[in-house]
């Protein structure tokens, strides 16, 4: 298992590259992604909290998982510029699960991340975070429900869709997208 973290030393924030590596290692193991090298690049110049993941080909074989994260995604919001282990795990867990979904099949027809609609992204995030909870990572469910409602409407149908996705396992992209579309249509 190869995990690289960039930068190794932070100058804008008090983050610990080793801690990021350890958290990633634990998640990679739990998600069965040991065969894929993982690189994590942290943009410490911004306090925003966006994250993205890309899978790169190596001689025609999808191999490397490249993660890019803005520093706010790993930050302890109570103590600005300090790292939160839980935020680190939640962020890395979300992107690693999206990578895993694409790698292990069932998500072949999913658009590239930057072409996902806000509703599709909210549905996929819900699916990822629901599974992270079952891996033992502590998250605030209401936060993700609110995000889902913002993208699918504030309705009972949207809430039912959220609950179904949150509890789901083994969904395909087609199934996930259909639940999201149906909730939005209501």
């Amino acid at each position, binding site marked *: 298992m190869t995990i690289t973290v960039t930068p190794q030393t932070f100058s804008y924030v008090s983050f610990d590259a080793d801690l990021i590596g350890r958290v990633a290692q634990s998640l990679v193991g739990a998600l069965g992604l040991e065969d894929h090298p993982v690189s994590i690049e942290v943009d410490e110049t911004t306090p925003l909290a966006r994250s993205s993941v890309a899978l790169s080909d190596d001689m025609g074989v999808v191999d490397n998982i490249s993660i890019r994260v803005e520093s706010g995604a790993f930050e302890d919001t109570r103590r600005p510029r300090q790292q939160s282990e839980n935020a680190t795990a939640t962020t890395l867990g979300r992107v690693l699960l999206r990578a895993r979904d694409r790698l292990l099949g069932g998500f072949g027809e999913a658009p590239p991340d930057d072409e996902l609609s806000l509703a599709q992204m909210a549905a996929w995030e819900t699916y990822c975070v629901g599974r992270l909870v079952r891996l033992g990572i502590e998250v605030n469910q*209401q936060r993700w429900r609110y995000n889902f409602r913002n993208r699918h409407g504030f309705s009972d149908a949207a809430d039912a869709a959220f609950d179904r996705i949150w509890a789901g396992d083994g969904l395909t992209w087609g199934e996930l997208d259909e639940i999201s579309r149906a909730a939005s249509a209501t």
Partner: protein
Amino acid sequence: MRKFFPVEELARDGRFNQITMKDRMADPRTVLGKDGVRPSSNRLVPSRPDASTAARVLMHGIFVGEIQALEGAGRTCHDFRTAGDQARRAQDAAAGDDSGADAVPFALKLDMARQAWDEARHVEISVKLSDWMGGEIGEIAENTVLQAACSTDPVLRLAGVNRALEGLAIDVFTTMKEFGDLAGDPFLEFCEDWMLADEVTHVKMGSDWLRKVTENDPERRKKALEFQGIVDKLFSYGGTRSDSEESPIGLARRFRELAGFTDSEVEDIAEVSLAALNERKDAVARLQAEAASQFAGR
């Protein structure tokens, strides 16, 4: 109980972590435009990919801001004696304060007590809304801005709290109300509109008292308005609130007019907010250069 409580001693339970504006501004990171890579608009609207998080973070800011506004209004009830309060005057004299300069009209204190109740309700509303949005009490560091509420001159306090802080609240609530409306959130728009109504009243109260108390003292009024200008700039949080699309929070011109701001006063606030935004950009560039040179020197 002391008069003029220091801002560093505002009592909080263990969930809160308070930081100063200085701490906040020492952060070299920025969300502002850099080489055109970042979005030119940071305005809080549902179409922003991070809208839910940004709204939740802003709601926490409102929540702690309401706590501080509650504390400020409450302290004004306590810190200044009413002109005819002989017993309090004797107490103050015994404590070495016999200036009488801090006496305020009884009706002004009643308005501040009313404001304390309003702010207490706003804290209650913010807690409920935060919960609704998946927020947690104390999850974001609290920026202490109550220095404006600690002035020993009641007129400066009115200018700082009722006109600058509550004026900022008008801008924030208007942004949040529009966000709730666009997102279709059934509670957010409803609650923000109620709070906005209160804030317009508070700003108007401040404007009216400021004029009344300084009616025959143009020098004192000038000083108060200058103080308000300083606080307005401070409350622009380095450009978080301005007319520019780069700022998440806009300037709510219409509601400010309802609250008693003149056109030229609104223009002045627009100007200082924009200046704060530009100063923040310069400061961030400086801080980033310093951080880079420290890194290179390792």
